[in-house]
Every structure is written in C-alpha cells, then in structure tokens.
C-alpha cells in the first residue's frame, strides 16, 4: 500500500467515523484509534496523536454552530476547563510512560463505557432546586431557551463535577479522545445541568482540553503529519456532513448500531492489548 492509497483509505474511513460520530452524538474520535491501530497497523502512539488533533477540529467545527443557539454556558465551560486542562497534561505525560498494552486495555474499557452510556436514558430535568452556594459564588447559574422562552437553571455539586472533569481530562490526554461521555456525565448527572446545555458546553470544552495535551504530544513526536492529515480532514468533513443530516435523520437505529460497533471495537482492543498484538 503506497502513501496515496493509505491516505485515501484512512481519509474515507475517518469521514465515515466523523459522520456517524456527529449523527449519533457519540463523537468520531473514539473509533479513530482502534481503526488505525487494528485495521491499518498504525502504532498506537501515532494513532492517539492523529485522533487528538481530529478531536480539536470537530470541537471547533460543531461548537461554532452550537454557540449561536445560546445553549452553551461559557462560565461553566471555562471553570471546568481548569480541571480538564490540568488532567489533560497529566494524561499526556502518563501516555508517554504507559506501555502500549495498558493503553490498549484502558482504551477498550472506555469504549465499552461509552457504548453503555449511549444506551442510558436521558433523564428529564428534575424540578428546579434552590441555588447552591458555590455555584452562586462562581456565577454558574444561567438560563437557556426552552421553546423560545428563557428558562433559568441552578447548578449543583460543583466539587464532584470538577473532580470528574479532571478524570475526563486525564482520559483525553492519555487516549487522544474527547471524553465527551464523561464530560456530559459530570455535568448532567452530578451538576444537574440541563441536557442541551451540558452537551453543547461539553462540545465546546473538548477542543480546549485536547489542545492542552496536544503540545505535549507534538513535542514527543506523536503527531505524524502524514497520518494526521487524512484523519483530520476526513473526520472534519464527516462531522460537518453529519451535522447537516442530523435535523432530518431518525438517529435511534444508527445510534444503537454505532454503539454496538464501539462495544465490539472495545472488546477487540482489550483482546489485542492483552495478547500483545498491538
């Protein structure tokens, strides 16, 4: 396989990953590493580097569309980015000293977790509770549009959310993924941020988190231009296409299929890592 074929195949596969990722809201980045490592025999460090860069691209692309709708909460995002960026740098350093075998196994577990997360019911917003002291102090409470009406919400359990975000950042830096699932979990479940606000704010934060580990990746030589080029362009094009389809498509079936694919990739990563085939 020469460079032209290699780029074309990886670009096409990344386009599909980006398309499905944005259509299902699961993110395309999560399948890029197993795809490169398992199907294209790319070393996992190069795969992680390329995936991380593509994650930044999709975050910037989708956040640009989301911020206009007024769902994302810039203060929640910025405050929690302290946790995710510190976590991301810790994760990136961890990646340089963790053996491939262990990275593959952790990756597999995260894939299984992401698949399980997507099967989870989106809980409807519980009735509004009184303001939380820390959240008030940090001015995290805001309002978001529900059927065109500005509806206020109160943020809770800030320290738990902050701690989970550090974990999300570490996973992002270790595995070159967006950790969108953990971010949404922290905001949705722990901090009780309304679903639309947490998804869009998370999307927003993913780019900043990934940029924090990108510097470490770059200096360690993880970002190989010939691999990152087709991955980034493919994922970006795919996710922009997916966002266009999102309005029209019935995503439930696609979501389930993609979740099954992710779970299978997870098992394959654990198996390959365990047996040392990567």
């Amino acid at each position, binding site marked *: 396989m020469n460079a032209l074929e290699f780029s074309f195949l990886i670009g096409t596969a990344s386009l599909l990953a980006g398309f499905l990722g944005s259509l299902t809201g699961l993110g395309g980045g999560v399948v890029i590493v197993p795809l490169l490592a398992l199907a294209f025999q790319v070393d996992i460090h190069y795969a992680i580097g390329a995936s991380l860069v593509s994650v930044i691209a999709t975050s910037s692309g989708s956040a640009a*569309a989301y*911020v206009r709708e007024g769902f994302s909460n810039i203060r929640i995002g910025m405050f929690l980015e*302290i946790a995710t960026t510190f976590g991301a740098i810790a994760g990136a350093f961890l990646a340089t000293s963790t053996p491939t075998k262990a990275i593959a196994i952790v990756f597999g577990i995260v894939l299984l977790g992401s698949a399980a997360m997507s099967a989870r019911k989106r809980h409807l917003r519980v009735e509004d509770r009184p303001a939380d002291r820390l959240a008030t102090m940090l001015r995290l409470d805001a309002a978001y549009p529900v059927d065109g009406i500005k509806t206020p919400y109160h943020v809770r359990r800030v320290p738990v959310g902050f701690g989970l975000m550090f974990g999300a950042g570490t996973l992002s830096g270790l595995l070159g993924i967006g950790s969108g699932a953990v971010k949404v979990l922290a905001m949705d479940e722990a901090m009780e941020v309304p679903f639309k606000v947490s998804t869009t704010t998370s999307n927003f934060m993913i780019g900043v988190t990934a940029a924090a580990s990108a510097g470490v990746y770059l*200096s360690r030589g993880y970002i*190989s231009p010939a691999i*990152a080029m087709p991955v980034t362009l493919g994922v970006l094009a795919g996710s922009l296409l997916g966002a266009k389809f999102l309005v029209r498509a019935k995503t439930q079936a696609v979501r389930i299929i993609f979740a099954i694919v992710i779970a299978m990739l997870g098992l394959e990563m654990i198996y390959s890592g365990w047996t040392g085939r990567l």
Partner: protein
Amino acid sequence: MTGSLQLSKTDDTVIDQRIGILLRVGMLLSAAVVLLGGVLYLAQHGKAVPDYHVFHGAPRHLSTLSGIVSGAVQGNDLAIIQFGLLLLIATPVARVAFAVGAFALEKDYLYVAISAIVLCVLLYSLLWH
C-alpha cells in the same frame, strides 16, 4: 477590534457569537492549510510506501514550533501540514485568550482569573517543552 466590543454585564451572547466566528474561521483556515500540505505531500511522495507500525516519533524539525514554522516557510510539504495542525491547536487557545479579554471588558475579574489560569496551562503545554 476590542474597541468595537460593546458588552452588557449580564448577557454573554455577544461573547458567544464572536467566539463562534473565531472557532469557525480557525477551523476552516487550518483545514485549508492541512489540505494544501496534503496535496503537495501526495504529489511528491504518493508512491512511497509508508510504515507506521513501529513508533519512531516525528522528526525534530516536525515536532518543534520553530522547526515547523521554518519548514513551512521553505515550502516543505509535511511542515505545511504540521503548520495547519498547529493552527488547529491554536484555535481553542485563541478562544480562551479572547475570553480573558471579554471578561475583562465585562469587569468580571473572577472569570478573568479563571480563564487566565486555563490560558497559562495551554501555553505551558505548547511552549515549554
């Protein structure tokens, strides 16, 4: 540019919109540069057989800021791709820097401090090793 910013104290919509534009421009610009480098790379080395199975790490001139910039200026294909990726990485950093300024205009000093911490972490990662 900052002179034209008229921000109300309670509403972040203006910041949001400007950040949205910033992200979109950064994303498109970097994608264009990566594409340009990619076309040059495939035109020159399309027939080469790549092997990424064993990790050697990208060479030094493609993994330092100065190396990438000087390589891109000289028209090196891989350095141009890498420069595009740098622009991509710089986009969220610019977003945070922008937020520092926007919060300062709103006189929200708590959030000036918070975004400044995030900015420092990002710059540390990009510039100090």
